């Protein structure tokens, strides 16, 4: 039986927590298949502490490819390295996060190794009897869930929706094997060149990383009212989202848009303010762990998926909420 692999992902030099979520998923699958769990790390100047962290969080093995050419993500060299590793070790399952990197790299790799890939999975399990990976994912804007398998080819590849499970917790007593792999220069040849990263200053916390997202919609009435959303998000250490309508009106730039033509998010808490809950919006946030909705229309669709719904005027509710959170934090700080 081949191993279960997860792709460790870096975000600006740091291992991102989605890497530990994948280990949590992988551990469960590897146990069911009675095989080893391994993480694959591609990068430059990969710190030993990162490798140790992956082992502490469940990896039995860590494959490391450390090369100057892998400093920034570029699909061609990353794909060539992964394809070579897959051919050498024949893993049974290979998981990556459904981030911009995972959703670019994995299809490129899957085509070349001629195997199946399932996008943006929210549930993974092993089929009894066959040992096949059962991959469940939302489709048609979240209106259906489809369970998919890759019966005849290996590895069975999937990208996994970030925040759809908890990160694996570290156990400092765990030990694991580290395998360093070297590749010839020609593997890194690429027809693309990385130029630069430009931080979006309007995203203090990136939407995909945020534990809490506060989103505003047309119900805010005026663009100035977004200041309350910004303030609430900042107080909660969260990110700011927006519905399509307000992005189209220019109240918030596109990178904040949640929904079918924007981002898909799955935070621990999604606060929808003045958002009616059009099906396109719901598609982008319905797998959030908790949903709090504030809207003046009691029939708004958003209330159907909310854990807590407040029907009322956001201009009254938000200022009082902000005030109470401030008071609470002050009290807690003492």
């Amino acid at each position, binding site marked *: 039986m081949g191993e279960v692999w997860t792709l460790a992902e870096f*975000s600006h030099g740091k291992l991102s927590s989605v890497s530990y979520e994948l280990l949590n998923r992988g551990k469960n699958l590897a146990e069911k298949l009675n095989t080893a769990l391994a993480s694959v790390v591609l990068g430059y100047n990969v710190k030993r502490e990162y490798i140790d962290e992956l082992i502490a969080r469940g990896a039995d093995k860590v494959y490391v490819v450390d090369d100057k050419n892998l400093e920034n993500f570029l*699909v061609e060299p990353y794909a060539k390295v992964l394809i070579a590793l897959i051919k050498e070790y024949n893993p049974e399952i290979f998981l990556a996060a459904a981030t*911009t*990197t995972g959703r*670019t790299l*994995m*299809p*490129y790799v*899957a*085509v070349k190794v001629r*195997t*199946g*890939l399932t*996008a943006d999975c929210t549930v993974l399990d092993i089929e009894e009897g066959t040992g096949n990976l059962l991959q469940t*994912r939302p*489709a*048609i*804007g979240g*209106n*259906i869930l*489809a*369970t*998919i398998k*890759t*019966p005849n080819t290996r590895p069975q590849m999937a990208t996994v929706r970030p925040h759809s499970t908890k990160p694996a917790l570290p156990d400092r007593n765990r030990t694991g094997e580290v395998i360093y792999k070297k590749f010839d220069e020609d593997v890194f040849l690429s*027809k*693309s*060149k*990385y*130029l630069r*990263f*430009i*931080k*979006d200053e309007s995203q203090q916390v*990136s939407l*995909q990383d945020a534990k809490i997202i506060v989103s505003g919609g047309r119900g805010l009435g005026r663009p100035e009212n977004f200041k309350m959303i910004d303030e609430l998000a900042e107080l909660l250490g969260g990110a700011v989202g927006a519905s399509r309508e307000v992005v189209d009106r220019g109240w918030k730039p*596109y990178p904040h*848009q949640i929904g*079918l*033509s924007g981002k898909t998010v799955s935070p621990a*808490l999604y606060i929808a303010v003045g958002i009616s809950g059009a099906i*396109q919006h*719901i598609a982008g946030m*319905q797998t959030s762990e*908790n*949903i*709090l909705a504030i809207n003046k229309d*009691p029939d708004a669709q958003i*209330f*159907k998926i*909310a*854990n*807590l*719904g407040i*029907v*009322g005027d956001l201009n*009254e*509710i938000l200022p*009082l909420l902000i005030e109470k*959170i401030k008071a609470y934090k002050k009290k807690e700080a003492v």
Partner: protein
Amino acid sequence: MKIVVPIKQVPETSNVKMDPKTGTMVREGVESIINPLDLYAIEEAIRLKEKSGGQVIVISMGPEKALEAIKEAIAMGCDDGVLLSDKKFAGSDTWATSCVLAHAIKKIGDFDLVICGERATDGDTGQVGPGIASFLDLPLSTFTSEIISIDEGKIQVRRLVEGGYEELELKLPAVLTVVKEISDPRLPTLRGKLRAKGVEIPVWGPQDIGVDEENIGLKGSPTRVVKIFTPKVTREGEMITVNDEKSLEEAVDKIMEFLIKKELI
């Protein structure tokens, strides 16, 4: 500049109705449209052509009905179209679809760019654009939000990533998948519609594009759908109505209690 834009015809899902008895999507009477995210790819291709000349060819794999989508793209300003339609294509997953589209693009030949929408709103995978790039061994920029420049066989692009943007330089020919931010799609004009009527759309099957039949349709697809079901979206939520000072206070206290209980604050 020769640009190929692969598009998909999808059901109009903005007014999806669910059958309350079976819990499945009601497909009867649902209109078919160009995948809304493909419109940004079409628009960007037309703009590039308007700026520096050339040709935009729109291709689609699907039933004969997908001709409508191709005609609409031509009415917007694309020059030509090709429909990939054959029983043997049916049941293709993203691997097999990428394979068919890549073969068709290769047959069209001599292109500079392939521009795709980020994903289709029905399948929601976003895997076919990168899949085409992989089959054709071409450089790829996904989630592209801006084309910065094109010259001397190179294109500089900006792509939307977590927490910001990345800029890349790709050698042409290249494949881009684009997000909404890149353009504002135009509507088809009456003149465009008239022109589209007159444009002959060839229909290609597996033999026309020289694709191995082992690699297409259900037979060529590594994945299988095991089951499809309807998620339970309704939560047992609590609702509070604010209509005076007292209920306002209560509602906000309830939110605080919720945040504290769930350890979100």
